């Protein structure tokens, strides 16, 4: 699927890179093949970790229908003696949600292969447990202690379908100020390594490879190993695929409940141009601000954006369970009120949502002028329901102040994948926290 396409594109570019390397002018090539004493020596430790893990890891491959060409692939490793294999939920999500369309297989480094069945999923932490038929790879020892910053670490997997690979880097502890528990790994990780083991210097698994920030320098993330043990305890039986969607929905509900529980009842506000607006409402919510720096512009705009950044992968094209809001404060002393509201309308019209009709139904909206603390505002609330998960909704709220002819706020709240009641309770607190306090 998309993952496979991305892998194909990357593979193509790598091959092109290799051809360019071969095309180098021989006259400019080094005269000898002796190793340059100035270059760092290959890590014996990495070689040793890879050798020891070789019998424990497998490539997990997904196939559409009866096709023999894989639709997606990732990595996994044995975590128990009874053949249970740990991987990421996002590696096997298609087979969990569409079991009639996709099948899973494994391919071990020694050439062994066979079918896989799903035994447990943890959508919130992006983990899954699968089991191989008649194949029991050697389990790797698991370490639940979070590595300290600067600890030597390794990641193993099958990047870009290029074969078993190990990368060496540094673990940088838990990512700070987020509900989403992730260990920051400063080392290379590529598509296809998802679900592979992240090893410490002693060769124990401290986590599971999960994601990477592209277009940045070696910023990768690992799911802490402490979540593996809990999942393995529920993985003794094969998952009933007819109820897998209900299980995923329940876990998404649990995730959004935890998100709202982490936010205090009274939302913290910050002043901006006479308005008090919700800002850093919880430690896990990060805010940043920006504005038009040119004082000569007739319209001054200040933008404050906040987000919990706790999106959960559900399936290709659907990441949910997140909370974000943005305030834009517009002010002018040069424009006529009619010109000002024209600019204001442009800002309001630019508000948009992303989503696929495969996953969500269209929005239903209601709009009214509402008397808030000290000012009137037009409040629009839009709600759309998930097609596969009836208990989950996306909720969008747009607040436009209507109390000043040359000053206004446009506040936009986005809640993704939340229960209707708890989402609306948060909307009530969010809108109710706004004040006009010049």
């Amino acid at each position, binding site marked *: 699927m998309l993952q496979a396409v991305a892998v194909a594109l990357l593979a193509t570019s790598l091959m092109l890179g290799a051809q360019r390397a071969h095309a180098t002018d021989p006259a400019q090539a080094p005269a000898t093949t002796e190793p340059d004493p100035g270059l760092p020596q290959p890590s014996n430790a990495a070689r040793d970790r890879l050798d020891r893990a070789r019998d424990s890891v497998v490539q997990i491959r997904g196939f559409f229908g009866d096709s023999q060409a894989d639709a997606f692939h990732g990595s996994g490793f044995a975590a128990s003696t009874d053949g249970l294999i740990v991987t990421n939920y996002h590696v096997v999500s298609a087979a969990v949600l569409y079991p009639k369309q996709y099948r899973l297989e494994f391919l071990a480094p020694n050439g062994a292969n066979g079918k896989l069945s799903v035994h447990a999923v943890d959508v919130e932490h992006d983990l899954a447990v699968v089991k191989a038929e008649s194949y029991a790879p050697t389990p790797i020892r698991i370490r639940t202690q979070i590595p300290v910053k600067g600890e030597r670490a390794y990641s193993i997997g099958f990047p870009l379908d290029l074969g078993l690979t190990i990368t060496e880097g540094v673990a940088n502890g838990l990512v700070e100020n987020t509900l989403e528990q992730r260990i920051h790994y400063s080392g290379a990780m590529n598509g296809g390594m998802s679900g592979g083991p992240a090893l410490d210097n002693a060769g124990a698994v401290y986590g599971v490879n999960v994601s990477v920030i592209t277009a940045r320098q070696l910023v990768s993330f690992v799911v802490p190993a402490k979540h593996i043990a809990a999942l393995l305890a529920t993985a003794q039986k094969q998952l009933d695929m007819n109820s897998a969607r209900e299980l995923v929905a329940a876990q998404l509900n649990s995730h959004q409940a935890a998100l709202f529980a982490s936010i205090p009842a009274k939302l913290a506000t910050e002043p901006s141009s006479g308005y008090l607006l919700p800002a850093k409402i919880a430690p896990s919510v990060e805010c940043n601000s920006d504005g038009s720096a040119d004082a000569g512009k007739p319209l001054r705009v200040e933008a404050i954006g906040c987000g919990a950044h706790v999106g959960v992968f559900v399936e290709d094209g659907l990441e949910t369970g997140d909370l974000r809001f943005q305030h834009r404060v517009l002010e002018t002393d040069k424009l006529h009120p009619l010109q000002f509201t024209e600019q204001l309308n442009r800002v309001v019209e630019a508000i948009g949502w992303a989503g696929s009709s495969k996953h969500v139904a269209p929005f239903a909206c209601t709009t009214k002028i509402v008397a808030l603390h000290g000012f009137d505002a037009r409040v*629009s609330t839009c709600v759309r329901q998930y097609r596969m998960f*009836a208990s989950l909704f996306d909720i969008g709220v747009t607040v436009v102040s209507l109390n000043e002819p040359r000053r206004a706020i446009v506040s936009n709240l986005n809640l993704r994948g939340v229960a209707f009641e708890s989402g609306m309770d948060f909307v009530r607190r969010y809108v109710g926290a706004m004040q006009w306090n010049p």
Partner: protein
Amino acid sequence: MEPVERASESTPEDLPEPPLAAAMLIEVLDTHGRVQTRHRLTGAGATCKIGRSLNCDIALDDAYAAAEHTAISLLEDGRVAITDLGSSNGTRINSEQGSQRLSNASATLGGAQLIVGRTRLRIRTYHTALAPERLFRRDLLQRNSTLLAGIGLVAVTTLVIANEWLQAPERLAPKILTAILAVAIVIAVWTGLWALITRIAHGVWSLRLHVAIACNAAAGVVACIWLFAIAEFATQWSWLDLPKFIACSGAVLAALFLHLHNATNLRRRTAAIVIAVIPLLLIGATVWIQQQSESRNVNRIAVGTAIFPPQLSVMHGVELNEYLSDIEALKREANRKRQQSLAENPLVSTR
């Protein structure tokens, strides 16, 4: 002007005596029904042959006419006798009773249209009924087309300037000039098209008339949209959408009717029907397609109408609890849309 006696439909026995010697006028018409050439014959027994041959009195440049196609003879009682001279395509007569192929020699009082090949001819005799004198048009639009065209141009220019001013660009003057130029080109092309049709149908351009119609209608539609937008903001009445649509599209239809009525020979009723049917069908289809597309667009949010300065609003805000009290209705509507979405595109089954 020759003296004319109006003839009525009557039998040859009842025919009044022609005041002068019998006469007929054969008019060759172009494709728009306008007279190309006239041929006058007088005296009973006078005959006119029509065809492509140079032997004919009226030589046609028509590949579908025979060399000697039709003969027209003037009878003593003032009627004419039409005889097909054995052509393959035949001769047809268009009268109020319809079009029919001439089988035998036929006598007529005149007034009928004769079709020879693809050429139309009209025969007039003293017995042909004359239409009453057509009055000069005295409607408001035609009498004041210059004034109305001027008013329309000023209105359009003002609205263009106002629109550009509203956008508050950094360099207003060049923006205004560019916008005026763009609008002028559009109006020129539009009115030029209608003037050309008028020239073909009536022989006059009537450019000012069409400028008056186009400019006033454009200004009216823009003003209509703005006024309704302000009214919707002031009252927050969402039902104003329908009267807004009716009023603004009504202005467009009225302008199209005036263009069509003044540019063509269509009767008032026919023009009204054309304008009512074709644009309404087009507008209806467009609105329907748009609504269907919007109702399926899962990322479309309705955040209300355009915002204007708060002083223009006459509504007071409701309490937040009151606003959220009916939120269950929103949930029901979202659920209805989900059901509709699932009905149109069911989920892939797990069983």
